[in-house]
């Protein structure tokens, strides 16, 4: 193995790393922002409200990310009305499609995580909120959501890692992320080991860093559970 080709081309990897981090960061952020209201709508009993949310979550959790990205990047071009509208400016752009798909994907998984946390809120907490005269909305904002989001965190840290790994798929639609960088180096030098092991190491370091940070955050938000006696 000859890792000098990696050092000569480290710039491609660093650019790819930046693209990966951007895509994952943006999609996680927007995904979380849409997931919180959707999780609340999911918990509403009226089927007209919760059915669309259920269908969205069901579709994105039940199909492969690769198929989702193909539907959006290649599939939307099948429709003349999309092609002739101003939307096409976005949907013909691979980066936008990647970000759009990743966001919808993580949005669905995160909705399910938060929904689960809301559903398992201890009765006592809700009863306490009612007993001090909080309205449903106030209880949601002050009691249910903070409590649910805190309990959702361990599952959400898994979702962050899932997204980091899932984002490697964007290399299939021509985007040069970390995996895309490795594919370029592999095809240029025919050196699969150097190319993919380097990318793998980058991902491994990112994954372990995320795990480390999440553990620290977890310690912080569960601090009140720690018994000191």
């Amino acid at each position, binding site marked *: 193995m000859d890792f000098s080709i990696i050092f000569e081309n480290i710039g491609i990897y660093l650019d790819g790393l930046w693209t990966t981090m951007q895509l994952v960061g943006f999609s996680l952020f927007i995904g979380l922002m849409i997931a919180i209201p959707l999780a609340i709508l999911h918990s509403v009993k009226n089927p007209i409200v919760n059915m669309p949310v259920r269908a969205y979550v069901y579709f994105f959790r039940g199909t*492969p990310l690769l198929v989702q990205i193909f539907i959006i990047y290649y599939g939307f071009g099948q429709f003349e009305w999309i092609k002739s509208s101003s939307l096409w400016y976005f949907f013909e752009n691979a980066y936008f499609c990647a970000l759009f798909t990743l966001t919808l994907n993580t949005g669905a998984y995160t909705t399910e995580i938060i929904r689960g946390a809301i559903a398992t809120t201890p009765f006592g907490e809700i009863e306490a909120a009612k007993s001090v005269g909080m309205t449903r909305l106030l209880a949601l904002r002050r009691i249910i959501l903070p409590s649910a989001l805190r309990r959702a965190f361990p599952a959400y840290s898994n979702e962050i890692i899932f997204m980091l790994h899932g984002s490697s798929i964007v290399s299939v639609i021509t985007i040069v992320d970390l995996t895309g960088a490795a594919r370029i180096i592999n095809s240029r030098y025919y050196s*699969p080991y150097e190319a*993919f092991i380097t*990318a793998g190491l980058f991902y491994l370091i990112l994954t372990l860093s995320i795990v480390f940070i999440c553990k620290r955050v977890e310690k912080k938000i569960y601090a009140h559970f720690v018994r000191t006696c």
Partner: protein
Amino acid sequence: MNILYGYELSILQGTLLTLELSILSLLISMILGLLGALGKLSGSKALYRLINAYTTIIRGIPELVLMLLFYYGGQVFINWLAESVGYEEYIDISPFIAGVATISFIYGAYMTETFRGAFMAVPGGQLEAGVSFGMNKIQVFSRILFPQMLKFALPGFGNNWLVMVKATALVSIIGLDDMVRKASLAAGSTNKPFTFYIAIAFIYLLITTVSNKGLAALEKRSNRGERKE
């Protein structure tokens, strides 16, 4: 029935390949997972470190990167190996074998963690009860530990299976004729990408829905001895 422009049979063949690949990989990854879990719990420090390195590294790198590494790298490696023992001809690894090997190897790591957790969840008192009856180690394992472990492993196992079925979509990138690739080929020649990708998305949904139902039934059955609250 001509909704898929005459490509129904082709998509169906792809579906069968996806299922074949998934089931074969599931079996192999289960064996790897059992061996890994037993190795991790065997008490040997060296073995623990080795398997821990395997599960940490594999679970820290995206499936796609590993798949590309094994597919391109495995090709180079096998030919280097063949050449060094004096075999002259070029060996072409079939994408099917590369796919099964990679997916099994990856999910073997996840299964290892699932089974390890499940083995540890079996209450120690039950094992002691077995010993007090005069059972030997093998009897305790096969009559108490293993059957009891299965119940605890089921939720994680189900989750791994669902993630794995969706991960098989990636084999289309290394040229295996699974559902996604069949859809891509059909989409290319009919210019109807949306139709075909949506069609296979629904087949994936069908597979995950049936799996969910089956897993729920299994879980219900495995908990039939539990005390009802």
